[in-house]
């Protein structure tokens, strides 16, 4: 059957692969530049094009754990992540191996901090390389789709039965459009039958299941067996590549792909999307008469030792391009593997290393041409001029930032959206607390937009650990006698508070750390492009809960953050809104007093209408905030040492429809759905009035 094609980004090609493979369980958590993979899959599920269990997890650690659980129970499972998210998964990534879960996970490569960047290099996948997974790198968007299908066939083969990473360069592939041919699903069904787990965690089918541990005496044996399985996987990879080619007309050469190597004297070794530029550089050098070729590493694990040795025997020099550094070894990631593969052989060929494209910097054809020249020169002379070359470029001139003298703790001229509510809250917070404040910033849009314009230390924290960073800063200051001189506050989003950050906040609250936790709640992951969070309201249309023919927006209600934190009996907590600045200021002052006195945590949950994510006109940011309070959709209350009080109490609540109507995220909501929301609000408001009447919360 002829294949249809579409011009799509790599992330969508992956999602099509997932759809065509009829994946059964998809745990998801957003992170740039992977996020659109899980968004495209959400669209497929929301519109009935893929019948899968879609799990909106609260962090990557859980995301990978859902994947392992689902795969153990016998479902074909997919997930995707990168960078910090992959690092946060690490522990569970290791566990997935010995539970023998043939998960396919897409890694839209992005630099792992330090230093932070959204652009791709392989510092994120490097620490995961040796945990027993198969690790596949792709060059094109077509390969993204094809390898998603092939990797299921390889991973689920009982000779392998191992999880697999498919690594596509962020931005270069994830967001770039290319022509991609889409196989017919009937043909895929025939080629890739449903996954049958040999020992599913399902007592109705199997009374045996994969074990977590073995005695120390067996570890060495089982590690050796794993190496044998990796060797077996090489055969399976070659078989599947052939069979895919026979069925769908495309094959890639298995572990490696060679380009113009037949008569080559020297060879460049590449991986991922840089290969395309490297092909052109090789063409250019060939035109000049240089006999140079290219070897693309398609799988880093299992590592193609045999293919490398064979090629090394034919050439006089090798140049390895590396998008990651193994710090402390002096060189790159693939470089060390290539050298190791050749060492105990008779082949003595100089191997050079080019560390290039770190942090997502482009690797242009001209650069690779120069590398190629050096490799050719080494082939002719038989000598290495320099073993490891860091390909560096001068920083282009940048416009220096504009500093304006003012009493405010914030410079004008941020990168924020026009009409951003978050910046109103940042400024109110910092101008109230003053310059002796340390802000801990779990990743969010405010960190990106306002971290550069505030006049206080603004420390980027890891997503799941904001309150722990705060604890560290606070304890050190307390030890040095500064606890009453410096405020330690977060500026955290709803994801960093209600989802991935909750464990750390709970710990700090229970320990009685005298820190401020401020959550600016825009009710979704705005930094990654409006995915639902634990505080996204019922029926809200987000990019991970799209309203479609099957889905009607987010199916569940938001968490009651205030009550979760009140259960910790912290001395002060409040909700607030940017529409009520004097009330917000008073609450920040109160939080400052309580923490300065060393009484414990102060928790501020501030509602922040988001013009971009909620789809309303930017001049209505404050108006929408006001409507949220006046309709009871976001009640503004405080709990001061257990005493409950409603801060803004309208005589009569406005109908919630007035609040929902101007926001396009609720455009699909029917009258019946509005009634359901109104019912919840009425109940909640009655409960708040009752609590206020009782005054002190019983458990304080």
């Amino acid at each position, binding site marked *: 059957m002829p294949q249809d094609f579409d011009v799509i980004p790599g992330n969508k090609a992956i999602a099509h692969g997932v759809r065509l493979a009829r994946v059964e369980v998809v745990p998801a958590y957003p992170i740039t530049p992977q996020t659109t993979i899980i968004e495209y899959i959400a669209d497929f599920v929301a519109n009935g094009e893929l019948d899968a269990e879609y799990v909106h997890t609260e962090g990557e650690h859980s995301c990978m754990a859902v994947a392992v659980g689902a795969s153990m129970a016998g479902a074909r499972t997919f997930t995707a992540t990168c960078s910090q998210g992959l690092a946060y998964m690490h522990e569970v990534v290791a566990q997935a191996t010995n539970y023998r879960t043939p998960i396919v996970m897409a890694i839209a490569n992005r630099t792992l901090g330090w230093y932070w960047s959204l652009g791709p290099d392989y510092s994120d996948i490097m620490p995961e390389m040796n945990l027993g997974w198969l690790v596949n790198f792709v060059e094109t968007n077509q390969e993204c789709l094809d390898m998603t299908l092939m990797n299921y066939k390889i991973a689920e083969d009982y000779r392998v039965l191992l999880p697999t990473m498919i690594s596509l360069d962020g931005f270069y592939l994830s967001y770039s459009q290319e022509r991609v041919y889409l196989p017919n699903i009937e043909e895929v069904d025939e080629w890739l039958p449903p996954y049958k787990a040999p020992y599913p965690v399902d007592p109705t089918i199997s009374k045996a299941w994969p074990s977590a541990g073995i005695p120390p005496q067996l570890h060495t044996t089982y590690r050796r067996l794993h190496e044998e399985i990796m060797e077996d996987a090489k055969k399976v990879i070659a078989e599947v590549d052939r069979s895919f080619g026979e069925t769908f007309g495309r094959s890639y050469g298995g572990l490696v792909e060679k380009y113009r190597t037949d008569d080559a004297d020297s060879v460049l070794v590449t991986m991922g999307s840089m290969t395309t530029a490297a092909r052109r550089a090789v063409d250019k050098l060939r035109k000049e008469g240089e006999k140079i070729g290219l070897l693309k590493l398609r799988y880093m694990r299992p590592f193609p030792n045999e293919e490398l040795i064979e090629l090394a025997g034919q050439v006089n020099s090798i140049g390895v391009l590396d998008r990651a550094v193994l710090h402390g070894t002096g060189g790159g990631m693939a470089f060390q593997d290539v050298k190791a593969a050749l060492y105990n052989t008779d082949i003595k060929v100089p191997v050079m290393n080019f560390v290039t494209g770190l942090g997502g910097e482009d690797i242009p054809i001209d650069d690779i041409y120069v590398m190629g020249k050096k490799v050719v020169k080494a082939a002719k002379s038989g000598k290495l001029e320099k073993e490891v070359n860091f390909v560096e470029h001068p920083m282009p001139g940048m416009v220096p*930032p504009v500093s304006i003298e003012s009493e405010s703790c914030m410079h004008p001229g941020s990168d924020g959206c026009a*009409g951003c509510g978050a910046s109103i809250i940042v400024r109110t917070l910092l101008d109230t607390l003053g310059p002796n404040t340390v802000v801990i910033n779990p990743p969010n849009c405010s960190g990106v937009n306002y971290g550069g314009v505030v006049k206080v230390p603004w420390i980027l924290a890891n997503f799941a650990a904001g309150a722990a960073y705060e604890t560290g800063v606070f304890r050190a200051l307390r030890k040095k006698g500064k606890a009453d001189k410096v405020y330690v506050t977060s500026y955290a989003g709803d994801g960093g508070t209600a989802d991935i950050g909750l464990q750390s906040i709970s710990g700090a609250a229970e320990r009685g750390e005298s820190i401020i936790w401020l959550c600016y709640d825009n009710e979704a992951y705005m930094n990654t492009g409006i995915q639902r969070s634990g505080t996204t309201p019922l029926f809200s249309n987000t990019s991970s809960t799209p309203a479609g023919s099957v889905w009607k927006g987010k199916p569940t209600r938001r968490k009651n953050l205030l009550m979760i934190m009140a259960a910790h009996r912290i001395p002060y907590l409040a909700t607030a809104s940017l529409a009520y600045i004097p009330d917000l200021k008073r609450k920040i002052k109160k939080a400052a007093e309580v923490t300065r006195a060393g009484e414990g945590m102060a928790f501020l949950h501030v509602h922040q209408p988001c013009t971009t994510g909620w789809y309303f006109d930017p001049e209505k*940011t404050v108006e929408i905030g006001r409507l949220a309070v006046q309709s009871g959709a976001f009640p503004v209350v405080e709990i001061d040492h257990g005493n409950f009080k409603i801060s803004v109490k309208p005589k009569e609540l406005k109908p919630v429809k007035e609040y929902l109507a101007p926001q396009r995220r609720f455009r699909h909501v029917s009258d019946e759905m509005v009634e359901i929301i109104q019912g919840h609000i009425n109940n909640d408001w009655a409960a708040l009035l009752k609590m206020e009447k009782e005054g002190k919360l019983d458990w304080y």
Partner: protein
Amino acid sequence: MNMVQDRPVIKGLVLNDIATKGGKYVANWRVYKPEIDLEKCVACGLCISYCPEAAINRRGDKKPEIDYRFCKGCGICAYECPQKAIEMKQEEA
């Protein structure tokens, strides 16, 4: 006071320095421009609190002044002004 002075240089350490922080001017992409009618203005300061850009300052007479180098034209100030003293006017092409 530049507290970075007199501190050791650490190889490879990248610093954020409050002294060199700052913002950017808006280019020429603003579509609507707020204009304040100072006759109507009662200097309540609401526009100053609500400006997401911190681009409105108090003048000597307490009345607001918009720093158009930073204003993105969101229109919150005009929408919220209780005196209706701010009008959004389309920028000339």
